[in-house]
């Protein structure tokens, strides 16, 4: 992409953005499918670590005003359908290995998502995927890591609720510019209800 910038005393900011913009912004959702499913005991919460695709935004900024110039990504780009064609959701798709501790990844292609899974139901539940709304994603980054922290509340065998925590995975990480949140005019919920299977 080539663009002529007519400006004075502006800065170029480069940071990770919500992973829904490449190759084209057609959805506000990210679906992460695990390489293996896990089963969780009723009434407990456990932390797992997943990866997500990193997309890098280039902004031109002056004081607090910023304008997105371009977004690019080295990660695999793929979309998927969550639910049925008549009432489902088209999502950005990512297949992730499931880790029990923070994995080492290439920060230019993959970020690390710490997911706190809580089983609020009274039975064991199998989980093989997680759906997230880009609105509410809180991305943090440093030279070697891009991260997000989220929760997944399982209410029964078919329904779950996901949401994000606004905190870094490591100390001293920088917070990314929230592109999706800044584009929304009204306040909307950042929670995602998964009703088409988990």
């Amino acid at each position, binding site marked *: 992409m080539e663009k002529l910038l007519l400006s004075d005393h502006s800065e170029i900011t480069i940071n990770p953005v919500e992973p829904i913009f490449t190759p084209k912004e*057609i959805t506000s959702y990210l679906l992460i499918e695990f390489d293996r499913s896990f089963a969780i005991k009723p009434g407990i919460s456990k932390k797992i670590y997943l990866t997500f695709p990193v997309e890098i935004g280039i902004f031109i900024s002056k004081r607090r005003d910023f304008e997105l110039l371009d977004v690019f990504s080295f990660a695999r780009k*793929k979309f998927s359908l969550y639910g049925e*064609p008549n009432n489902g959701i088209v999502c950005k798709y990512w297949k992730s290995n499931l880790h029990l501790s923070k994995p080492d990844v290439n920060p230019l292609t993959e970020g690390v998502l710490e997911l706190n899974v809580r089983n609020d139901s009274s039975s064991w539940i199998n989980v093989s995927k997680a759906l997230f709304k880009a609105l509410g994603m809180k991305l943090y980054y440093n030279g070697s890591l891009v991260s997000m922290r989220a929760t997944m509340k399982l209410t029964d065998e078919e329904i779950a609720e996901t949401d994000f925590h606004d905190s870094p995975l490591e100390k001293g990480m920088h917070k990314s510019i929230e592109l999706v949140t800044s584009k929304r005019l009204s306040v909307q919920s950042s929670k995602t209800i998964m009703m088409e299977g988990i």
Partner: protein
Amino acid sequence: MVNYTLIGNITVLKLVMIVGILLGWAITSKIFSFYVRKTFKTRLDKDHLEIAVKIINYSIFVLAFTWILGILGIKLSGLLVAGGILGIVLGFASQSIVGNLVSGVFLMIERPMKIGNAVEVNGVIGIVEDIKIISTTIRTWDGLHIRVPNEKIFTSSITNYVSNVARRFSYVVGIRYKDDAEKAIEIIRQITDEEPFALQTPAPIIFVSELASSSVDITVMIWSPITEWYELKKRLLWVIKKRLEANGIEIAFPQSVLWLGEENLREKIGKSIVGD
């Protein structure tokens, strides 16, 4: 003063009452419209909301009108007879208009299509530009503006190309008999796997669908987001063709092998000449 007759049996009092009723109708309509819009703003979409407001306004008007008729001493039973005859006359005259109008109301309630949708209806394919009470306007792919009466739309089948979030499209790729169909399927699967808008789920379906007269036909079925399917369909077939050819698999073309009786004869003659 209040019993002073103005025209016929209309007194000042009756006139004041009629004016009051009309004022009351106007104010009540405004109040009801305001509260209906406010209450159902988040529950109903704009089209349905406006229909509801109109129905309420007309109902209040009919009540006010009936009340005024009573004040003027006009009996409704007489009006009903006259109205019945008038209704029959008007009914014959405006049959199609009423049909279109009723169809328009049902189209707005049922909503098989919305403004901006790509549809095929009554043999017309295009984008819905407007749905009015009598007719619907469609802009065809060629940029033509077509007005379709609502009655025709309501009684014909409607194909809405964009009502679902994703749709499937298909190709049939015919390769030569001497090519490896399993390898071709693997190559096509790689292509769909690399393509972002070929959805992961539902997964593409690729299989040998026919052993045709000149080719082994491989059917490729791909699901794509509704906003992207057409661009993808236009692009992907050529990608498949080029990738197959790069891997030594050729697209078959129609061919026939002819066995001529003369050839057998020549073979026999040839043998006899050699024998001599």
